[in-house]
Structure formats: C-alpha cells, structure tokens
C-alpha cells in the first residue's frame, strides 16, 4: 500500500466516522449541529486527505509525470477533499448551522462514497 493510499484511507475513515455521528445527530440522538465530535473528525479527515493529495503529487512526480493527481483513484481523493472543504465552509455560514450543516456532512460523504463505487 502506497503512502497516498494509506493517508487517503485514514482520511476517508475519519470522514466516515463524522458522517455516522452526523446521521445520529440528524436522528435526534446527538448534538444538534456540526460542532463537537463530528467537526473534529471532519477536520482530521480534511487534514489527512490534504496530506494524501500531496503524497499523490510526490508519487506522480517520482514516476516522471506531472504533480497533478490525474489517476482516477487520485481524482477520487481530490473529490473527497473538495466535499469536506464544502462541509467545513457550510459550517461557517450562520444560516446553515444546525441541521443543514449535518445534512451537508452526510451528503458530502455520500457523494464521495458514490464516486468511489462508480470509479473503482
């Protein structure tokens, strides 16, 4: 397993934990917003997936290609990272705090998971 894959898997695992916590919160059995554990897991996932993208660029560079993640799996990593980027910014909009932010978190994870199923 390459460094890129390991970091991406760890990042996606963090985002998955966050999505589960958000789903529990949406069902009314947790905090009413993204603040707290879901946000911590989302942030950890964002950081790990960012590291994964850098590792992907280094890997591509070593293989003699460009730094941009052009392989399909790496594009999926970029999509996950962008989805988490969106969730973190949704959380910053006052009007979207609470349930909309939780829904965005779950939707972001669903988009990433769906893309993985479609692209693998």
């Amino acid at each position, binding site marked *: 397993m390459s460094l890129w894959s390991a970091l991406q898997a760890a990042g996606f695992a963090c985002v998955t934990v966050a999505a589960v916590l958000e789903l529990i919160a949406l069902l009314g059995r947790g905090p009413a917003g993204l603040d707290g554990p879901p946000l911590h897991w989302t942030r950890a996932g964002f*950081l790990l997936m960012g590291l994964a993208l*850098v590792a992907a*660029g280094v890997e591509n560079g070593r293989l003699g290609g460009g730094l941009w993640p052009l392989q*399909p799996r790496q*594009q999926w990593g970029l*999509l996950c990272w962008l989805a988490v*980027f969106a969730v973190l910014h949704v959380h910053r*909009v006052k009007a979207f705090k609470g349930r909309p932010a939780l829904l965005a978190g779950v939707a972001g994870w669903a988009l990433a998971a769906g*893309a993985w199923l479609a692209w693998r």
Partner: protein
Amino acid sequence: MRTPFHEHMPRQALALAGWVLFWMALEALLRGLGLEGHRQLAPFLAILAGIGAAAGLAAPRWMFDLLTSVRFALTQGGFLIAAVLAARAVEVWHSLWFCALLASMDASMLAVAWKRRPYDLARAGFLLVHTAPSLVLLGALWECAFPAARQPGLWLIGTGCGGFLLGCAWMFYLKPVLKRRGARP
C-alpha cells in the same frame, strides 16, 4: 428585502457559470484560430485575470463583499466538484476555464486574507491557509512557463502545500489553545 448578491448563491452560480463560459468561448476561439500552444497560455491568462480581479477590489465594494463571502466560496467549491466529476468524460485539467475557476478562487482567498487584518498569532493559521494556495498556483505557472527549469516551480508548490497543511493544523488544533491562553483578546 432583496438579498444582496454576496449572499445569493443561485445568482452567484449564474455569474460564475458566465465566467466559466466566457473562458470556454475564448478557448474555442483560440482553437478555431489554430493558435498552437494556446494551452500554455491558459495559466498565464487565468492568473492575469485573478490579478486583475484582485486589483479591482479597491474600487467596487460589491466585488470585495462577493469575493470574501463564504457562500461564494461554497459556490466555487460546487463548481470545482462539478469539474472533477466532469474530468472523467472531458479534458478539464489543462483547459482555460478550469484555470480561470482556480484564479477566481485564488482571488477570493487573497481577498479573505486581506479582510482579516490585523493579523495576530491566533490568525496565523487562517492567513497561511488562504495565502499558501497562491504559491501552489505560482509554482504551477512556473512549471508551465519553464518546463526545462522545474526546480523553482517545485519549491513554490512544495512550500505552498506545506504552508497550507501547517495552516490547517494551526487553525484546527493550535488556535483553540492560543485563544484559551488569551493570545487574541
């Protein structure tokens, strides 16, 4: 009361679609004219557009409000997600419109960094996160312009990526500690 432009995401999406379509049309025009190597021009033009937008910040207030709006960041993020999805079917990464989208995002990040003055230790992470991507884009521009001498471009990209990740870690984990200790009143 009418929602201002910087808070109206559907109108922002329309404006951004217009921006993207303009660059698509320009690319088609360049291709139609048979200009060889126009793809090499893409980063130049996109960065120039970004600089132009940044320079225009001082004049129109609405543009500064738009570029510094979180909702606009979300709109741009949505377009980038669409671009990644579209990349499965069409050429995206070297297109003029994608570079223009990145340039608009870069102008937004620089404007947001400017808006958050004065800077203190607790805001250093925020500043890093919003300025480091410019280094990455500059590095990419260098790589396109001087493929034979890649080293400075690689250094810029590496520094930008490192700065961004350090900024994220700072913002997520160090800032709360600094705030608790009273680094920022």
